[in-house]
């Protein structure tokens, strides 16, 4: 199914082991072999992006612009306007917020196509504080026209998203979440299309929309709820924008409750995107939004913060169970 990247068992296992950032670096090597006009731009984060090998192997396709994200986007747009296939990458807050207006003007307004990789988004850098955590990126980029937002469920889907972004019609923001030993959702190659959500589990009572790392947690939560006699569909919303409105409308017909689960602020992310569609549906199901509260509060390591915010499978199942009982 894939032309540029080999989705064999060994690759899928390796990617999961090394995590989404390093997966980007590994996949880049395949891209460089196949795409003549490829350019990957970074802001002094080649190691963090898993690009050390790429930097050595393909120096002519690599450009480090220093710690200067505003300049990064402008240079990327300039290269793109002459036909280069351009990826930019740095940590998610700097990739999206430091250069937000450059993204708006160059990628959104001027429609110069650039694929941006936001590294270590969500809470994985919790120990480093909220300068480095990123709970706002989906919300911010979502309000800029002409940019698609991809949020891969695991490292297999990270590779899929990177591959699909190359020939996609607009600029793309790929939000990478999770750590090393990233749980595998997709064990084999599969059909991935930007804008088409994937129903991983089909149930009849509740639809759980999930994205990024929360896809795996939602699949685990589904098992717990199943044991309690509640039947859930679990959806991988790998594309937050454009959101798959038609599929959401269809799912609303069989759902008593919509749930959305994301490692992102409850403001403006997956929950908001689903709610924007759901609000147009007659007799729409009630919608429980699970995500990070609108505050900078809990610090600590990744697992600790996720647990505190109720983003583990057990706590997700509990929230859903409690809500379901009130219907």
């Amino acid at each position, binding site marked *: 199914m894939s032309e540029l990247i080999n989705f064999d068992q060994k690759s899928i296992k390796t990617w999961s082991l090394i995590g989404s950032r390093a997966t980007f670096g590994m996949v880049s090597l395949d891209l460089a072999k196949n795409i003549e006009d490829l350019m990957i731009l970074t802001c002094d984060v080649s190691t963090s992006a898993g690009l050390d090998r790429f930097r050595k192997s393909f120096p002519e396709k690599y450009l480090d612009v220093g710690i*200067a994200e505003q300049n990064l986007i402008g240079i990327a747009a300039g290269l793109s306007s002459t036909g280069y296939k351009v990826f930019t990458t740095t940590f998610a807050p700097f990739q999206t917020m430091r250069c937000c207006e450059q993204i708006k003007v160059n990628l959104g307004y001027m429609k110069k196509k650039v694929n941006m990789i936001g590294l270590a988004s969500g809470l994985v850098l919790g120990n480093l504080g909220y300068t480095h955590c990123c709970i706002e990126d989906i919300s911010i980029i979502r309000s800029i026209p002409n940019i698609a937002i991809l949020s891969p469920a695991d490292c297999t889907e990270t590779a899929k998203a990177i591959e699909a972004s190359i020939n996609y019609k607009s600029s793309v923001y790929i939000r990478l979440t999770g750590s090393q030993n990233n749980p595998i959702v997709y064990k084999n190659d599969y059909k991935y299309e930007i804008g088409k959500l994937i129903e991983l589990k089909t149930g009849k009572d509740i639809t759980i929309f999930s994205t990024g790392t929360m896809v795996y947690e939602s699949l685990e939560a589904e098992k717990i709820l199943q044991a309690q006699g509640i039947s859930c569909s679990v959806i991988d919303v790998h594309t937050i924008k454009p959101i798959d409105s038609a599929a959401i409308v269809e799912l609303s017909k069989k759902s008593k409750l919509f749930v959305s689960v994301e490692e992102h602020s409850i403001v403006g992310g997956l929950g908001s995107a689903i709610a924007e569609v759901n609000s147009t549906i007659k007799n729409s199901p009630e919608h429980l939004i699970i995500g990070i509260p609108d505050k900078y509060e809990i610090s600590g390591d990744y697992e600790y913060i996720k647990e505190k915010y109720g983003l583990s499978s057990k706590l997700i199942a509990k929230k859903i169970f409690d809500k379901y009982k009130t219907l």
Partner: protein
Amino acid sequence: MKKLNEGELKEIKNFSKKIRKHILDMALHAGASSSHFGGALSIVEIISTLFSYQMNLNEKNKYLETRDRFILSKGHACLAYYAALCEIGFIKKDELKTFEKNDSNLLGHPVANKELGIEFSNGSLGMGLSLGIGLCISSKKKKSNFKVYVILGDGECNEGSVWEAMMAASHFKLDNLYVFIDRNNFQQTGSNNEIMSLENLKAKLISFGWNTIEIDGHNINEISNALNLNDKNKPTAIIANTIKGKGFSFSENNNSWHHAVLTKSTYEKALTELENYE
């Protein structure tokens, strides 16, 4: 070094005069919606030299990879840009009258439009130079050998992103990049010195690794000569000392003409002055 001959000089001067006339016409048509008048007039000689003489850019080569690129980073000075694009055949004279009107292609800041010769959308200050760097890197990598010309405002140099780009352009040794800094000493609400002093701009640029030249930005010979003073492996910065509102007694060095309404009577007065402008 190739110097302008009398004929070439006369032609560029003539071109400048036409640009000023178009600026007046557009400013008049804009009416109450007002226009960025002063900062357009300060770059007339620069833009005229580039568009009528220096750049390899015309209606016929607009899709060719090898064409030179122009970026008006101080996008609010678009009156001069639209006027030049009209003179070289990209924009019809009638279309200039749509400036800032509903559904116009010619808004108060340039909106990218290949057919009209507008390569990039600009208007948010501090972004154009970075685009230019991307283009220059591409020109070298692909051996397209085009050059990139960027005009920055002096007020625009308040933006930190300008200095990110300044650092990068010399780091990447972009000797195909030419940047004019329109040093008219004013920005929106006051002089540079009042609002944010640039101090010794020349020393700043030299210390950033640029081939730096300071000229009278209304002297066409000096503009043209500066463009010939290329230094291998360095980008070229031309500090163009200019007069905001240049060409008309009422607007020269008068910052109330940064963004102002041109009335019919002032327009008539300006036309008379333009007749006698040297």
